[in-house]
């Protein structure tokens, strides 16, 4: 038996989990980010120009239907950004991968802007259609609470100095806030009341928006999804660098 056989084998993570290594994660994100930026800009430009210039007015809503190309994708991303933060937080809680906690932190400001766009465009659309900027409707209210949860989540990260404690506490806040992310999506189904309609993109053909609005909407959604991934990858890289800078400064301070 050789000497090396007596050493305990170091099990390196493979596949998806290998990206928990910050260096490997940074290398991966640097490689795919240029393509993600270009694709997201192309999809957003195509979808928004198609939707704004080349789709007809709705017979009931007139030209306000064009707001759908911003309102639906941003609302969809506002909810799904929170779910992404939930998955990343659970990975942090269970496996203690720092990159995962930093990815959740990086996604929050993107999510809060998506929520704000959904709220603002919703209010601007609601005024001419419902006769009011705002109503305490189940879906709108749960969306507003989701917005406040985003702000609280970001504030909690900033308020706690120790990064691991901040990651633990924000992960718990993320679990709690998930209730409102789910409610934002399903409130219409739970409480069959309020002004807001049900799903715009449904597999049920009767409920779905007409094809002429549907295809540019799909392109816009693709653009928002790609932009979200590009921003989160880039911002996670930033968080990794900031963390490494703090660690090096602390080490230099001790020497």
């Amino acid at each position: 038996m050789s000497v090396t056989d007596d050493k305990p084998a170091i099990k390196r993570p493979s596949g998806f989990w290998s990206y928990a290594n910050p260096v490997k994660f940074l290398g991966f994100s640097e490689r795919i980010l240029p393509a993600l930026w270009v694709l997201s800009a192309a999809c957003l430009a195509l979808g928004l120009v198609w939707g704004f210039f080349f789709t007809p007015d709705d017979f009931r809503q007139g030209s306000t239907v064009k707001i759908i190309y911003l309102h639906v994708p941003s609302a969809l991303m506002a909810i799904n950004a929170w779910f992404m933060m939930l998955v990343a937080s659970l990975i942090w809680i269970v496996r203690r991968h720092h990159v995962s906690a930093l990815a959740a932190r990086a996604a929050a400001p993107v999510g809060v802007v998506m929520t704000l766009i959904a709220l603002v465009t919703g209010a601007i659309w609601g005024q001419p259609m419902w006769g009011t900027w705002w109503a305490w409707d189940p879906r709108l209210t749960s969306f507003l609470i989701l917005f406040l949860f985003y702000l609280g989540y970001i504030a909690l990260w900033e308020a706690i100095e120790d990064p691991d404690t901040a990651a633990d506490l924000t992960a718990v806040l993320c679990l709690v806030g998930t209730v409102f992310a789910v409610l934002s999506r399903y409130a219409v189904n739970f409480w069959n009341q309020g002004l807001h309609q049900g799903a715009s993109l449904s597999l049920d053909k009767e409920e779905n928006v007409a094809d002429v609005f549907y295809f540019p909407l799909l392109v816009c959604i693709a653009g928002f999804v790609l932009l979200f991934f590009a921003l989160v990858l880039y911002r996670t890289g930033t968080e990794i660098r900031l963390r490494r800078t703090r660690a090096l400064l602390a080490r230099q301070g001790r020497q």
Partner: protein
Amino acid sequence: MPDLGKYADAVLSAYGASLVLLALLVLLTLRRGRRARAALEAVESREKKDG
């Protein structure tokens, strides 16, 4: 420019507000990223110099 009729204000303000928010998000993200990269490079080069 399509004829937006009586809802022109609503449609244009929704597009204007959204595009401004998206542009701000991207620009602030890139600015913070560039600063973080520069700060790390400065600290790493100092570490190399000090051995």
